[in-house]
């Protein structure tokens, strides 16, 4: 059932949650999801946090196991999986869609237990978007910024947050909050307003026709990749800013008293990503650049019933030092009148 509470009570509500809460807070000139502590500057108004909440579920690095090597013998001890409940507060619709993309990867057979444990222990409180940024284009990928799919959803209307729980986890969490019955019709009105704003955005209607498994070879062989990728520096900004990029590397670190095997984010943009003893199969930036976008727009939907692994958050548009981005790729390679 829909409830409401005054917006200025939100800090109090967060502080009342007994487990760890991760929320968008200010860190220097940036807004990132961090474990909320008293005195932190809460920034629920920030529409796309500078760092995505993906690193709560899939941290930039995490220990997988530890080895002790002595002579010819090896002793292995596994890293504890996440056992602590937590709440992820104020996640936007696009980032929630990104979690679903990550789920497809990590929870598909065989399940990644490190990720699964974190996913299980989290309760997600989403926040519907209000004012979009110019770079938002989530609606193209079936994301509804007004109705995120989460355990609890918040809408801001006037001076109040309206909230509704959709799962048992969510209901349990919300039951501890001090709320009152919601005024009727407000959220519906808010949703309408959000839809209007999002439909008016410059990239609201990208034509994604032709980005599917059936056109794989055609898109792959397009001569346009060479020019599109020319300015790409091969840095990993876009992949690290992206809420769905999930490529990782597994590395060993010798601590002097054992070997720690950890996993860390990796990027298909790096020259050593596919480097083997005999060389690499993606020798220039053209192939690497193509791989990233083909994976998001063609390979992934082809394996996952048409689900794109782009959620239209627009972070890559903001972060790319050379202003390359997925919208340019969609427009250049797409079909139809919107694209030239």
């Amino acid at each position, binding site marked *: 059932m829909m409830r409401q509470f005054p917006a200025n009570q939100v800090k109090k509500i967060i502080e009342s949650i007994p487990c760890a809460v991760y929320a968008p807070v200010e860190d*220097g000139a940036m807004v990132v999801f961090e474990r909320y502590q008293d005195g932190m500057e809460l920034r629920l108004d920030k529409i796309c946090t500078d760092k995505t909440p993906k690193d709560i579920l899939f941290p*930039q690095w995490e220990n997988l196991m530890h080895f002790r090597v002595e002579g010819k013998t090896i002793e292995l001890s596994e890293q504890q999986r996440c056992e602590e409940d937590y709440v992820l507060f104020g996640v936007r619709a696009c980032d929630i869609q990104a979690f679903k993309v990550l789920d497809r990867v990590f929870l598909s057979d065989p399940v990644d237990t490190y990720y699964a444990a974190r996913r299980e222990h989290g309760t997600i409180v989403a926040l519907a978007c209000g004012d979009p940024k110019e770079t938002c284009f989530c609606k193209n990928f079936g994301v509804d910024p007004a109705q995120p799919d989460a355990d609890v959803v918040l809408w801001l209307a006037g001076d109040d947050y309206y909230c509704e729980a959709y799962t048992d986890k969510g209901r349990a969490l919300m039951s501890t909050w001090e709320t009152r019955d919601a005024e009727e019709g407000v959220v519906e009105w808010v949703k309408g307003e959000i839809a209007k704003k999002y439909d008016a955005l410059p*990239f609201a209607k990208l034509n994604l026709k032709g980005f599917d498994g059936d056109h794989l070879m055609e898109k792959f062989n397009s001569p346009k990749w060479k020019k599109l990728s020319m300015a790409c520096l091969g*840095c990993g900004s876009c992949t690290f800013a992206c809420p769905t990029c999930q490529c990782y590397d597994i590395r060993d670190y010798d601590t002097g008293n054992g070997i720690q095997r950890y996993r860390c984010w990796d990027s298909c943009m790096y020259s050593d990503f596919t480097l083997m003893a005999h060389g690499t199969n993606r020798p220039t930036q053209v192939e690497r650049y193509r791989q990233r976008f083909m994976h998001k727009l063609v390979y992934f939907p082809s394996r996952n019933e048409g689900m794109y692994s782009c959620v239209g958050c627009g972070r890559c548009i903001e972060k790319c030092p050379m202003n390359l981005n997925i919208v*340019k790729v969609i427009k250049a390679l797409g079909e139809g009148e919107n694209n030239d």
Partner: protein
Amino acid sequence: MARIKQRAIELLSDGTVMRVIGWEKGEGNCDWSPALFENAAEMENFVYGDYAGANLSKYCLKFNRQEGKTLVVLKPCDTLSFRQLLHEHRIDREKFYVIGAGCKGMKDEKGGLLKCSACKGKEFEVYDEIIDDEEAQKTTALMDRMAGVIELEKMTAQERFDFWRGELSRCIRCNACRNVCPACSCIKCVFDNPASGVQSKAPVTDFEENMFHIIRAYHVAGRCTDCGECSRVCPQNIPLHLLNRKFIKDMNELYGDYQAGVGENERTPLTSYTKEDAEPGIVYERGNA
């Protein structure tokens, strides 16, 4: 802009150059990207102006081995990087036709670029021709470029440590600073080389962040022209130029004024010496502990 575009089309058409590296407009007004143009028709999209902030010298490495000449449009500060690459024999002067393009200070969507506030002047180090207008010559530096370094030097060691921990802890090791840097021209970076023992992809501990940035600044010390691209591209807004400028300041103070990318001298302060150089202990006798 029209003059540069017209001249580039002429040079493409008469076969002097086979391609042009310049800029093209993006989806909005300020998101210009470096772009490659291979014929007059493609030059339709060419732009030059307020949002041409990127330093195109780095792209020269990509085209050095390709057939024919490449036309590259460089701003005054970019030509220093170009000269430095020539000094290091990473590019061949004969392979490039350099158009020196006048610059009034560049912008992005947030306003004037940080690197332009410490403009190094309007002189071109290398060029085949200059296309400039008078207005572009006027603007000068808005600030002393060492101001930030001096401010840090005045702090106590603990304050400096806290400052850098705060800044560097944001590093996500995306390598944008390295990949954009015209001085970082190694084919294989030491941080990508498994045999180096320092290859690491994530800022797993504080140390990794410190080491990466100290060593990166160190490896370009004496070769860094202070083009400011590292700070411009950092997605985490880390003021990386403060590391490079510290080296520049130290070298100027201890070994005499030096600007990388200027003049014919290929020797940098760290590849030369005098018998009277100061002993390393000198750094502990200056400033605050």
